[in-house]
């Protein structure tokens, strides 16, 4: 019964573990494949941090909203399996596997298109003027060019906003008054191209209800005065307030292309908080392929060496443990594909390391088995006693490794290193499965083999014929 179960598990795992195009019956394996991490297939990982201009904290909803916005933008890149998730209270992790032009991707992510409608305090600002608002200051585009100064600058929004809009090369930092922002991109409900009364194409926008109240209050008290629409600290439209406006308005004076672009930017890019890239990592595809090749070689050599050693030292049980090790490898690899575990370089290292640790349970059992045989027990009794006595050690030592894995996983989550998480996860899976294969698989195989007469001999179990008395307790 148990043997049948082991056989089924082995066959199914092997079927899953072998490459997808082999034995792909009725396309059943179409969606089962190894998920390769960034360092294996190449790509870009960026950690963006929300930097609210007033130095305050970012709300959970705002952060999630920003993540959704980025998700929509990334959708336009055509990346397969992008990963966009929030981390901690103010960070967003973006992983774009296979992206060949990191520059373009980073530009797209950082393009904040922060829309603001500002109170110009009576001034009629010309289109193209750079302004400082209560949501942050405008700076020159190459603020990040001189290393060191970028960090020293207290204004974190600088790079995020300025880099997206090249031009105005020479001004170090825009001086002048700080205008009050009445409504911003986060207050926007919708943006759409529409036509104004004279038939020219304009950008229409609709505000959320609470912002609409604010907007109504402002416009009703400032009739006859100018107000400006600002995108990324650049004035794109200044109009005189004709009437109290509550929830709908238009931005005019743009060309047809500009209208289309602005609508797109506003719809998909109305980020409520400015973001800054705090961590980025780009891996070229050639390095990734090289890593895979090397890892496969290392894994094969490691597996071979361990197999050789086990057979030489433990003879028949050693051979069984090697069979168990191959079953182990098949199950673990099948799980990697099914869960799925994103395999990184460190993950593969964790897996290869677990091959070495996987035989530990077997080593413990066999050492005990030899003990029992030397004490003069008959073989079947020695096998059972060997397994039973080895169990507490196997349990305790593996639980302690699992505890470390859990903490590693937590550490990986907070360091942004999916590399570390992958390592912890693969090692954890390895430890769990190794307990199963050592206890269940090896034990049952050993039981069956011993019913076959010629093998039923102490030499095969690694105890020499002369040995019968527990003369030496060194093992």
């Amino acid at each position, binding site marked *: 019964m148990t043997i049948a179960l082991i056989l089924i598990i082995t066959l199914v795992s092997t079927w899953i573990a072998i490459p997808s195009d082999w034995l792909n019956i009725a396309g059943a394996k179409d969606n089962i494949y190894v998920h390769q991490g960034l360092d294996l297939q190449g790509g870009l990982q960026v950690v963006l941090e929300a930097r609210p201009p007033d130095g305050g904290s970012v709300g959970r909803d705002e952060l999630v909203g920003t993540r959704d916005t980025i998700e929509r933008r990334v959708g336009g890149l055509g990346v397969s399996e992008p990963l966009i998730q929030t981390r901690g209270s103010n960070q967003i992790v973006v992983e774009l596997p296979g992206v060949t032009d990191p520059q373009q991707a980073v530009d797209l992510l950082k393009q904040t298109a922060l829309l603001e409608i500002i109170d110009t305090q009576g001034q009629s600002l010309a289109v193209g003027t750079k302004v400082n608002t209560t949501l942050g200051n405008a700076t020159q585009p190459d603020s990040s060019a001189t290393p060191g100064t970028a960090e020293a600058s207290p204004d974190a929004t600088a790079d995020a906003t300025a880099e997206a809009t090249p031009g105005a090369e020479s001004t170090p930092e825009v001086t002048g008054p700080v205008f009050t922002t009445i409504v911003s991109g986060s207050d926007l409900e919708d943006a759409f191209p529409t036509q104004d009364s004279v038939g020219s194409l304009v950008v229409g926008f609709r505000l959320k209800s609470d912002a609409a109240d604010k907007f109504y209050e402002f416009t009703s008290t400032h009739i006859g005065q100018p107000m400006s629409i600002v995108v990324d600290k650049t004035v794109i439209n200044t109009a005189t307030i004709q009437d109290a406006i509550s929830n709908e308005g238009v931005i005019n004076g743009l060309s047809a292309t500009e209208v289309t672009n602005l609508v797109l930017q506003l719809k998909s890019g109305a980020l409520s908080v400015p973001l800054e*890239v705090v961590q*980025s990592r780009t891996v070229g595809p050639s390095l990734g392929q090289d890593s895979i090749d090397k890892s496969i070689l290392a894994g094969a050599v490691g597996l071979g060496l361990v197999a050789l050693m086990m057979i030489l030292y433990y003879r028949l049980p050693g051979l069984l443990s090697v069979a168990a090790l191959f079953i182990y490898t098949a199950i673990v690899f099948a799980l990697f594909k099914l869960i799925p575990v994103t395999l990184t370089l460190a993950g593969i290292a964790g897996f290869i390391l677990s091959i070495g640790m996987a035989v530990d349970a077997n080593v413990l059992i066999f050492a005990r088995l030899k003990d029992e045989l030397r004490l003069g027990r008959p073989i079947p009794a020695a096998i059972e006693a060997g397994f039973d006595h080895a169990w507490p050690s196997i349990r305790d030592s593996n639980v302690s490794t699992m505890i470390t894995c859990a903490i590693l996983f937590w550490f990986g989550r907070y360091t942004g290193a999916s590399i570390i998480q992958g390592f912890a996860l693969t090692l954890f899976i390895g430890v769990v499965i190794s307990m199963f294969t050592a206890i269940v698989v090896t034990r049952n195989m050993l039981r069956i083999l011993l019913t076959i007469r010629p093998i039923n001999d102490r030499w095969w179990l690694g105890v020499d014929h002369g040995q019968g008395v527990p003369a030496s307790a060194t093992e």
Partner: protein
Amino acid sequence: MIDIVGKRHIWYAVSAILLLPGIIALFVHGLSLGIDFTGGTSWELQFNQPVDSQQVRTILAGQGFNDSVVQTSEDNSILIRMKELKEGSPVKAEIEDEFRSQFGEFTELQIETVGPTVGNQIRNRAIMAVILASIGVLLYIAWAFRNTERPVLYGAFAIVAMLHDVLFVLGVFSILGWVADVEIDALFVTAVLTVMGFSVHDTIVVFDRIRENLDRRIAPTYEETVNFSVAQTVVRSLNTSLTVILTLAALYLFGGESTRWFVFALLIGVAAGTYSSIFNASQLLVSWRNGEIQRFFTFWRKPSDSRARTA
């Protein structure tokens, strides 16, 4: 039977000798922290022709990156560690142009940038992870050994042996950082935590055997029981370590450049873990049982005690 426990003072001395250079390096030099902890950029490029690292340094210095570390390898690739260099910034384009004009075309193998605040966070989390792992393991062992006379003692000495191994790895990397510019990164923390796991894994097997042999009253004295247990498990301990070392050695030799130091840290950590579980952890139990450790502490306390008396 081999007498391991009786010679315990020799093993303590061996540990001290192995740890001392590293401890000195840690005090004098500390650890060379990589960009994961300090912030900065790590940039790996591959050229079609050999590149002179001095020229690379000059180009970088010309753009304001004065203290950049440049490492070249045989396949014409270079690894640069420098202050934060932003993706898509004009200064990056300028450096790339200068590289191109001096050394010809190149491929960007990888570039990683970490902001300074993130680096700080990672460092704190790393310390936190090591502390948490220690507490978790201590609690588990104390629970697993709850039927013995002093369960906490087993946990505590497993932790001592574990710290021994961690200290050894840290010491070696402190020396490497000092003499060979090897920097530690987040992956190194992973290696340290794994070494912790392996160390305890190895120690527990010996402890389990001691517990079992105590129950079976296999030898007349505690010291003999421990020695018997160590002797019984030493082959298994060496065999397991050997299989792990074999796989790690394969990874070290064939696994590629980017995980080499990570694997090296694992290798020396596993070796240290094997040593400490055989020669330190269980001997400490005996030393405690015989009152040697407590005596050490009363000796330690003596000066202050006498002062207290005269006062």
